[in-house]
């Protein structure tokens, strides 16, 4: 990447406390435009909390952060126009059909009727969901649901898409297809911020950060990390770092 990298997410000593518990402890990092930024960590390391602060779902306790150039304290609603979000928990409406979900989310992001029509036809076609378009989402297999969630999160062409453990519980073939979709999005200019605990997926990212007990312990490209920790693969890097964890996984 060139030197004139545009910073899309900037975090500076960002923290979140829940009472005495410090979920996220002064994390600082930058994410650049068009990048796939992996956010790794064990369960309970604070990944989701960090992501929720950046999405405007949770107000930080201290520290600074901007997303798409907007301050997370003062402009959370502005930020929401610029981002897509896919949570850990499947959160499309199970009692609506595939088409109805697409229409609804496209609608509340302010797409015009014409755009909605084009986009939804296009999306259903790309996902190969033509036959399922009029079926309730509840009946879809998990892998398809996840792919649909991602597509819905990208519908309004956000600058950044936040994916919180998007491939949890999904079979390897679907995971591969899912990552193809992520690459496609990144190529079209969307910045991808993704949390995962599948270490092989970490290799797919441009850069990764590894969180341990609320702190970022390492941040580099996959090759860089392997070199620093003189490890053969990401698993080794991760184990070296995660061994230090004192926090109980949830």
């Amino acid at each position, binding site marked *: 990447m060139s030197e004139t990298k545009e910073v899309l997410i900037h975090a500076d000593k960002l923290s979140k406390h829940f009472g005495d518990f410090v979920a996220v402890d002064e994390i600082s990092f930058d994410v650049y435009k068009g990048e796939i930024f992996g956010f790794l960590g064990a369960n309970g390391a604070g990944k989701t909390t960090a992501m929720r602060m950046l*999405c*405007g*779902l*949770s*107000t930080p306790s201290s520290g600074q952060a901007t997303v798409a150039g907007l301050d997370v304290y003062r402009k*959370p*609603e502005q930020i*929401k*126009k610029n*981002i897509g*979000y896919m*949570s850990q*928990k*499947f*959160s*499309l*409406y*199970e*009692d*609506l059909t595939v088409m*109805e979900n697409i*229409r*609804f*989310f496209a*609608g*509340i*992001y*302010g797409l015009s009727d014409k755009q909605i029509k084009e986009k939804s036809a296009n999306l259903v076609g790309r996902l190969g969901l033509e036959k399922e378009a009029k079926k309730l989402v509840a009946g879809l297999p998990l892998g398809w649901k996840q792919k649909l969630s991602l597509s819905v999160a990208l519908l309004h062409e956000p600058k950044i898409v936040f994916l919180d453990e998007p491939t949890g519980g999904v079979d390897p073939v679907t995971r591969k297809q899912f990552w193809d979709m992520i690459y496609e999005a990144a190529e079209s200019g969307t910045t991808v911020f993704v949390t995962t605990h599948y270490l092989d997926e970490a290799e797919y990212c441009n850069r990764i950060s590894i969180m341990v007990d609320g702190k970022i312990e390492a941040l580099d490209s996959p090759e860089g990390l392997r070199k620093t920790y003189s490890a053969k693969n990401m698993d080794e890097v991760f184990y070296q770092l995660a061994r230090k964890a004192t926090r109980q996984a949830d």
Partner: protein
Amino acid sequence: MRTLKFLLQKEFLQIFRNKALLPMMFIAPIIQLLILPQAANYTIKNINLSVVDFDHSPYSRRLADKIFSSGYFHSSGYPASAAEAIRLIEKDKADIILTIPLGFEDKLIKEGSQKVGVQVNAINGVKASVGNNYLSSILSDFNNDIRMEWLQPSRISNQPSIEIVSSYWYNPMLTYYIFMVPGILVFLVTLIGGNMTALNIVKEKEVGTIEQINVTPVRKSQFILGKLIPFWILGNVIFTVGLLIAWLVYGIIPLGSIPLLYLFAGVYLFALLGFGLLISTYSETQQQANSMIFLFVMIFNLMGGLFTPIESMPDWAQVITHVIPISYFIEVMRMIVLKGSGIRDILYHIGVVFSMGIILNGWAILNYRKTS
């Protein structure tokens, strides 16, 4: 506006697709309006009366016949002794014991007066006092009958007496349906409307879809309106179903203006749904929401003036009824349906309930956070 359109569209799709919601909305009120008014009946009937007749004379038998032919009393036997009669009360088989002493007829004829004993089981205070009243008036009637037979007509006319002629306004036949049905309808609208709204939002929290909404630019007010409007419409539909049942089954046609009824129902639903929304903002699970609703519905039910008149509650309880929106709607329903009251008579009620709506909805919007 466009966002609201999509929110409403989605809400209606979900409501009509919900297999449990629609039956709950329509079948429940129909069944309850058919059953509840029959059960919530204050007319005390079937009072179990045991007569201990020590006299066994024609007059004592005539007295007993007169009592039982009144239709309010049910014979629970003729025990032979006072002890046996007390046992019937203990076993809950008798509510009232009438003791006719030995020599009843004799003394009545010779001395012109006689005493009978009445013992009442007062565990159910209402039944006891109403039963006692019925019995007393039958006894005094019996008394008059006998006097009529014995005294010369000329002497009666000389006796000064005041006859009380009562006429009952608004509900001339003192029919309990007419009094209860409008109140029960209000109660049903409250129960179903409040419940649906609260549970609906909490369900979105439980499933996690609310988070997907919170991360979109949808404004809080849009989201809340998107929930309020559909349930406001449904509340009106339930109200209409109830009014139709009141007309078709009970023949109750509002004396006052029907548009006025709907005006008040609209204002009331606005307040009620605000209350449901508020509960939903304080609950994380449907279980929590349900138990909160249960608590409040109990209070509404017992203090809203549905079953017992607010005027006879203690002062502190009357204060509470002033902050319960349902008490205003029950009163207004009875005013418009039974008395034919006009808009001037209910302006105060409209004002109070509308203010409550503003407060409850405002509170709900403040308390609903897109960001935690």
